[in-house]
């Protein structure tokens, strides 16, 4: 059972465009939703995260939109740059329980063309 579903699997965006990656979760006990960025040969690194008490969080060119009723959240990358080309993973966890194990989506390979 896949608890976090991510789409699309891959995405090609022109430089300066907006990249949008979507995730849906099933477990309503999840209360923390991070996005990770992974470059080839590297481990995933935290990019931005949101809790369900807010509907949007913005950090620079990266924005998470969160829809609690639909159990969906998305990552928007504004003014996408070639350096943003990487694999992006959404994740979810139950932080309130004190545990921080992450359930990951299957990832989106983003290519930003020059």
């Amino acid at each position, binding site marked *: 059972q896949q608890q976090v579903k991510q789409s699309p699997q891959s995405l090609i965006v022109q430089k300066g465009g907006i990249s949008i990656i979507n995730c849906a979760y099933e477990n309503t006990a999840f209360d923390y939703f*991070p996005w990770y960025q992974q470059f080839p*040969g*590297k*481990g*995933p*690194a*935290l990019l931005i*995260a949101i809790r369900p008490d807010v509907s949007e969080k913005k950090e620079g060119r990266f924005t998470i939109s969160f829809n609690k009723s639909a159990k969906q959240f998305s990552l928007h990358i504004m003014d996408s740059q070639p350096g943003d080309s990487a694999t992006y*993973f959404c994740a979810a966890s139950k*932080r309130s329980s*004190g*545990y*921080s*194990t*992450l*359930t*990951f*989506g*299957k*990832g989106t390979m983003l290519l930003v063309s020059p």
Partner: protein
Amino acid sequence: DARVTQTPRHKVTEMGQEVTMRCQPILGHNTVFWYRQTMMQGLELLAYFRNRAPLDDSGMPKDRFSAEMPDATLATLKIQPSEPRDSAVYFCASALEGTEAFFGQGTRLTVV
């Protein structure tokens, strides 16, 4: 520069051989995770420890995989015997309880 260190970075081994992967968590972090990454399954949690005690290893094939933390500075993941289907990138991550998890660079395992 605090980071999670994994060794080896790459390992090629023959089917049936024992493989041991090591992880040095960030100093002071009390939670350690092992994840496996494959194209088909993505990132899967294999096991995690808090204060060196195993809390959950339900994601790990018990018959051939074992995970331990001999001390606070070392976590190990062992596969015995290894099989071709174990080929994957294995990541260790560490966290201070309830905070962000930091990932190592992974061990790329190839079993031939």
